[in-house]
């Protein structure tokens, strides 16, 4: 039976893991390679690196992080943040990433999804979407790390991205992100039911029950979380044991 995946996310700034609230107030949370090794040992099903380095010159640090991690971590590795071209994708994939996630660049140039899928296969191309609620049952796509509203409807966008060849959706609720009050279940449910590709729910994890709810009622295929793992509030094993008790299939 296919299990639900638990994915720790590491936000990386200039080669260091950081964590903030609603994309603000970044705090240092350690070395990314060490953190990835630790999560691998702890039973993570995949690892996501999100590079939030603003300056272009320092962006190659993420390639080194990926390269070092891939030497000794043998689970799928996704890298996102600032990827703008096929060349950017290739550099990461050839250095050990298994998937790349694209967000702003895909909105600016949807053809990038198609080109990437054609070149590397759909399974390599993850579409990351930052969604913010507008009205009841309506969410809008934000880009540039949540700073710019595109006014594009989330459901329309993910359907289009799936047609273009996106192999997976990494869905972040901007309203929930960093609050630790739970994932946006309604949003996740709508997105999951609108596409055939797997959906990773992100934003708002504060405890294992939140994960249970979004997997069960939001129909997510995987959950992503950052701070509850970084600050050792819950171990991956504890989360999985909790989910198993609630009859959610996990890998233990």
């Amino acid at each position, binding site marked *: 039976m*296919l299990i639900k*995946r638990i994915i720790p996310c590491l936000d990386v700034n200039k080669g260091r893991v950081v964590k903030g609230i609603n994309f603000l107030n970044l705090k240092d949370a350690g070395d990314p390679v060490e953190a990835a090794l630790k999560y691998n040992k702890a039973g993570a*099903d995949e690892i996501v690196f999100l590079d939030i380095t603003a300056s272009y010159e320092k962006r190659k640090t993420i390639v080194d992080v990926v390269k070092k991690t891939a030497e000794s971590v043998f*689970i799928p590795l996704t890298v996102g943040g600032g990827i703008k071209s096929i060349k950017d994708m290739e550099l990461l994939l050839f250095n050990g990433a298994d998937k790349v996630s694209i967000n702003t660049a895909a909105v600016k140039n949807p053809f990038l999804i198609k080109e990437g899928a054609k070149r590397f296969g759909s*399974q*390599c191309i993850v579409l990351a979407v930052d969604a913010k609620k507008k009205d009841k049952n309506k969410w809008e796509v934000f880009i540039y790390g949540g700073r710019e509203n595109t006014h594009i409807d989330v459901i329309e966008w993910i359907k289009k991205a799936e047609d273009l060849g996106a192999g997976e959706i990494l869905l972040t609720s901007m309203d929930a992100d960093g609050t630790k009050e739970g994932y946006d279940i309604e949003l996740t449910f709508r997105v999951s039911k609108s596409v055939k590709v*797997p959906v990773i729910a992100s934003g708002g994890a504060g405890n294992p029950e939140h994960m249970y709810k979004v997997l069960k009622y939001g129909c997510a295929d995987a959950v992503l979380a950052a701070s509850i793992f970084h600050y050792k509030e819950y171990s991956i094993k504890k989360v999985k044991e909790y989910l198993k008790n609630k009859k959610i299939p996990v890998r233990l």
Partner: protein
Amino acid sequence: MKNLVVINYGMGNLFSVFKAIRHLNIPVKISDKKKDIQNAAGLILPGVGAFKDAMNEIHKRKLFNIIKNEVEKGKPLLGICLGFQLLFTKSYEFGICSGFDFIKGNVVRFRKERKVPHMGWNSVKIINLRNRILKGIKNDTYFYFVHSYYVVPLEKKVVLTTTKYGRTEFVSAVEKLNIFGVQFHPEKSGENALLIYKNFYEISINNNKG
């Protein structure tokens, strides 16, 4: 004569396969050269992507007969994911396309499942315990899968494991004499799964001695 060769035909994940094998301190090379393939103790056919593109590349690089000759002479071959599917007679991915035909059978698409590709961790049920490639792997072990098509072998005795996805139970590993194949990615399934590469290396080395 002691190294493994990961066959480079320009597709997918050969670097992660290479890194995983090197991590075990097993001598390994990525190559598409005739000489390297002929001198290898064992061959690994990796791959992600589409069946037809892969076969086209293999023919374009003139690898088809080189690989076929070596395998028919008894050299061990391990196919991973798409490389596993290429071992079979033909695939129905974007029209019909012929594979290596080392094992009789077809490659077909998941039809009954809502979510395709089958992506993520799933377990294997070991059907045939008397096999060499899965030595040390327990029943119900989880592996990482990413695929939209699956194999249907005509020869049932080659089946080592099956895996259930929704309502479909498909073949996830095979062994036939010197030919081995797994649908999942051992190089992405955690440290323990690397045992499969270690087993394959031992099979290759012993094959050469004999």
